[in-house]
C-alpha cells in the first residue's frame, strides 16, 4: 500500500525545550497506526505540528492523498493553516474535548461540512435554489454521519449537555464530516468506561473498513492500542524510540524501560 503521510526529521522547539526531535513517521493507506509514549513525550505536539496549529522548527510533512485512479500527488504541507490542512484531508480530534458547546450536536457536525461547501453571504441572504439544495445536503450528510457514529438520538441536543463518552464520539463525527483520508485521534478513549472503549474499538475499525479512512491515534489504553493497531510508534522525550507491530512493541526492552516498568499487557 502506498504511503499517504510522510514525516521526515520533524523538530519542534519551545524556547529551550525540544518537544519533538527529528521525528520520522509514515502512514500507509488503510492502516490504523498508534502513537504511544509517556506523559509529556510530545505526542500532542506532533499532532499540532502536522495539523498546522504549530509551525515546526524543522522537517518536512508530506501528504499523498489517495486518488481513485491510483495517481497520487506528493505535497509538502508545512506552513499551511489548520483549516487548509483539514481541507487537504487530514482531520483531528482533541485530547481535551473541544466541541462547540452551545451549538446543537447536528450543528457541530455541520461545521465539519463547511470546507466542502461554498455558500457565501449572498447565498445566505437570497437563498437561491443552489444554496437551498446545498444547505439541505449539509443537513442530510451531517445526519448520516451521526447515524453512523450512533449519535442520531442526540441530534438537536446542545453539545454541552451530552454525556462524556458521547462528546468524544461527537468529536470523531465532526472530523469525519470533513471527508478526510486520514483521521488523527488524540486519546479518544480517555475517560471512557470499558464498555464504551470496546464500542470505540469497533467504531474505529468500522471507519477504516467501511470508509477506507486511515487512522493515527494517540492512546494510553494499551489494551485498545494492541487490539486495534497495525503498527505502533513509541515516543519518549520528543524522540522516536521504537516502531513495529504490536507483537514487537510488547516485547521491546527499550519501550518497557521508557514506561519505567509500567506493565504493557493486553
Amino acid at each position: 500500500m502506498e504511503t499517504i503521510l510522510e514525516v521526515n526529521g520533524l523538530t519542534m522547539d519551545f524556547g529551550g525545550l525540544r518537544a519533538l526531535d527529528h521525528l520520522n513517521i509514515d502512514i500507509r493507506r488503510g492502516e490504523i497506526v498508534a502513537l504511544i509514549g509517556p506523559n509529556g513525550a510530545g505526542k500532542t505536539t506532533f499532532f499540532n505540528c502536522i495539523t498546522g496549529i504549530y509551525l515546526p522548527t524543522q522537517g518536512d510533512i508530506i501528504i499523498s492523498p489517495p486518488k481513485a485512479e491510483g495517481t497520487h500527488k506528493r505535497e509538502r504541507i508545512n506552513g499551511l493553516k489548520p483549516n487548509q490542512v483539514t481541507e487537504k484531508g487530514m482531520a483531528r480530534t482533541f485530547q481535551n474535548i473541544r466541541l462547540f458547546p452551545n451549538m446543537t450536536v447536528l450543528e457541530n457536525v455541520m461545521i465539519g461540512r463547511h470546507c466542502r461547501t461554498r455558500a457565501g453571504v449572498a447565498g445566505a441572504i437570497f437563498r437561491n435554489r443552489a444554496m437551498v439544495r446545498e444547505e439541505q445536503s449539509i443537513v442530510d450528510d451531517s445526519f448520516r454521519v451521526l447515524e453512523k457514529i450512533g449519535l442520531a438520538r442526540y441530534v438537536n441536543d446542545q453539545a454541552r449537555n451530552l454525556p462524556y463518552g458521547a462528546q468524544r464520539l461527537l468529536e470523531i463525527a465532526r472530523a469525519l464530516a470533513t471527508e478526510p483520508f486520514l483521521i488523527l485521534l488524540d486519546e479518544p478513549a480517555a475517560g471512557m468506561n470499558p464498555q464504551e472503549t470496546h464500542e470505540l474499538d469497533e467504531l474505529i475499525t468500522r471507519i477504516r473498513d467501511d470508509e477506507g479512512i486511515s487512522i493515527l491515534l494517540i492512546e494510553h489504553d494499551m489494551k485498545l492500542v494492541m487490539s486495534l493497531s497495525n503498527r505502533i510508534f513509541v515516543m519518549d522525550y520528543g524522540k522516536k524510540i521504537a516502531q513495529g507491530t504490536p507483537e514487537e512493541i510488547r516485547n521491546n526492552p527499550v519501550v518497557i524501560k521508557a514506561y519505567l516498568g509500567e506493565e504493557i499487557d493486553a
Partner: protein
Amino acid sequence: MMPTLSEIKKSFLVSLWFMFLTFPIMVIRVNTTEKLVLWRWENMAYMGIGSFLLSFVWRYMLWRKETGKKDSESGTLQLPSFFERILSDRRYIVPATAAGIALVAIFPFVMDTYQTNIMITALMYIVLGLGLNIVVGLAGLLDLGYVAFYAVGAYTYGLLNHHFGLGFWTVLPIGAVMGAFFGILLGFPVLRLRGDYLAIVTLGFGEIIRLILENWNEFSFGPSGIAQIARPSLFGIQLSLSSSIIYLYFVMIGMVLFTIFVVNRLQNSRIGRAWIALREDEVACQAMGIDKTRTKLTAFALGATWAGMVGVIFAAKTTFINPASFTFLESAMILAIVVLGGMGSIVGVSIAALILILLPEYLRAFSEFRMLIFGAIMVIMMVFRPQGIVANVRRSYKFQPDKHS
C-alpha cells in the same frame, strides 16, 4: 425552605458592616461654627435596615436561581423568562403580532412629533443592536468601537450631501459600503486579538475616528459639525417637517424589518454557523476547516454595514451632525442592548433596545439616577440572567428515522 437562619445572619452581618463603614459620613456631623458634634443615629438605622433588606433580597434571588437550576437539571437548564413564555405560546403569538402591526401602523398618527422622534431613535438602536449582535453575539468578537461605523455612515451622508447635494436614498447604500469598508479596515489589524485585547483596540479605533472628525477641520468641519443636511425625500418631493418625520418613521420600520430578515437568514446559514463556531472555540473552528481570517472579516464587515446605514439615517433625521454624537457612551449603549437582550437573539435585542431607549425618555423625572439605575439593571441581569432577556435558541431539525437508513 429558603429563608434559613444562616441567611438572615449573613444579611445581618452585611448590614452591620455597612453601618460601620458609613458611620463617619452618615452619622457624625461636625458643625465648625458652633463647635458642635451632631450625632445622627437615625441615619445609621436607615442604613442598617436598607442594607439588610437589599442583602436579603439579593440572597433570596440567588437562592431562587440555584433551585431553578436544580429543578431542571436534566432538561433545559434555565427557566424561561416572561418574554420567552409569550413567544413560545401559539395562542398569544397571532393576536400579539396583529396588535403589534396595528400599533406600529397608527403610532405616528396618534402620537405627537416628539414621541415619534423618540420611537425613530429606538428603532435606530434596534438596527444598531442587531448589527453589533453579529460581531459580539454571533462571532464573539468584543467590539467597543462600534460607534465609529455609525459616525462613518453619518459623515458619509453629511459630506456627500453638503458638497455634492446627493440625496438620502443615493447615499444609504454608499453608507452601507463605507461601513463595511471601515469594518474590514478595523478587522485586519485585530485579526490576531481576542477578548479584552480586542476590546481595548476597538475602543481605541472608535476614539481615533472621533478625534479625526474633531480635529481635521478641512475635512469634517471639526467640532462645529455639518448643518442643514437634507431630510429624506419621497420620490423627489420635499416633505414638511412633521410629515417627513412620519415618513422617516416608516423608513425605519422598513429598515428594522429588513435587518431582522437578513440577520435571521445569516445566522442560520453556513456563514452564521461559522461565526458561532468561531465564538465557541477558535482553535477547534480552524481545525474543522473554517478560515478564521475570512470569517472574522465578514463578521466585522457585515456588522459595520448596519451601523453605516443607521448613521446615514441619523444624519438625515437630525439634519446636523458633529463628533459629540459619536462618543464611547454610544458604543457602550449599543453593547448594553446586545448583552441585555441576549447574545445572538434577534427578539431579545429588539426588546432590549426598546427598553433601554424608551424607558429613560419616559422616566425623565429620575434623570439624575439614570446611570445608576442603568448600572444596577446591568449588574442584576448579569448575576441572575446572564443569557439575556431572550436566550438564543439554536434551530432544531426534524428527521424521519427511516429516511436515511
